[in-house]
């Protein structure tokens, strides 16, 4: 009897100890995570991301950040296969020059750190966000979210803009996360939408509606 009691007592106290330790570890992780997020936000505020209309010379530097065919096709993200039928940069430049699409450079303390494009459709009621690319940086993920937020704000600055759309490869975790954190919602998964060499990639279609407070009616 006495042995049973001792065993039960030991077992219960060890279990309670383990639960307490797990709870403390979880609380510590939450505090660390909240602290990291605050630090992140503070650093971004210190080094404010500013968008300016891209100059053709900047596109050359931006293109150099994508160092492999995989990164290039993830960056372009359009309805295209690899190898591409034409030069994607030349196509983007031609669209930029014709006014069909606007290309935007993101700078932090005057250094070029990111890039994105907006393609207006349906008389300016829809903009397609594309070509998101951020230079390798400790805070690259946070900068990417900020670039997407600012591109969305830029698009919605036009009172006639109703909704934004984009397409992103399903495996491209960094971009998917940046879009979601900036408010985009995934709606459609197109299976095996692009053929890249011998692989096929799934593509996700996302949308972002004008914030309700800004709707005209």
């Amino acid at each position, binding site marked *: 009897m006495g042995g049973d009691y001792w065993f039960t007592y030991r077992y219960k106290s060890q279990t309670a100890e383990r639960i307490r330790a797990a709870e403390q570890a979880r609380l510590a992780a939450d505090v660390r995570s909240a602290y990291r997020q605050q630090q992140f936000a503070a650093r971004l505020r210190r080094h404010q991301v500013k968008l300016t209309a891209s100059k053709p010379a900047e596109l050359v530097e931006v293109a150099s950040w994508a160092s492999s065919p995989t990164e290039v096709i993830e960056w372009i993200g359009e309805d295209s296969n690899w190898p591409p039928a034409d030069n994607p940069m030349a196509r983007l430049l031609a669209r930029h020059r014709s006014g069909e699409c606007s290309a935007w450079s993101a700078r932090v303390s005057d250094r070029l750190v990111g890039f994105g494009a907006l393609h207006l*459709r*349906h008389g300016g*009621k*829809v903009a*397609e966000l594309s070509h998101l690319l951020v230079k390798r940086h400790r805070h690259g993920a946070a900068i990417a979210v900020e670039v997407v937020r600012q591109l969305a704000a830029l698009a919605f600055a036009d009172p006639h803009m*109703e*909704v934004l*759309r984009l397409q992103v490869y399903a495996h491209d975790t960094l971009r998917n996360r940046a879009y979601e954190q900036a408010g985009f*919602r*995934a*709606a*459609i*998964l*197109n*299976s*095996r*939408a692009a053929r890249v060499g011998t692989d096929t990639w799934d593509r*996700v279609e996302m*949308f972002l*509606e004008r914030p309700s407070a800004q709707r005209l009616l």
Partner: protein
Amino acid sequence: MKHNKSEVLLAVLIDIPPEDAAIVLTYEDAVLPLLSRHGGRLQRRVRAVDQSAELHLISFDSREGQEAFATDPSRLQLMRLLQGRLLRQRVFEVTEAP
């Protein structure tokens, strides 16, 4: 079925998970009528006997029409009907079999 040179013929295979069937079908019922705005036509809409998928055979007069449908603001706004669910589909560009 005639298939001229500029026409684009698509077969769209849509997954209908049983738990989200009502949501997916509500979205599809709302979106398909928008095809006609862009020279698109729903040629056939068939459903798997076990209700797990639908196949839509859709034609567009041109590739531009297909792109205009994809970016139609009404289509994009209807995506909210999916209530955060991810609609899974596979799109094949098809042609008459010889």
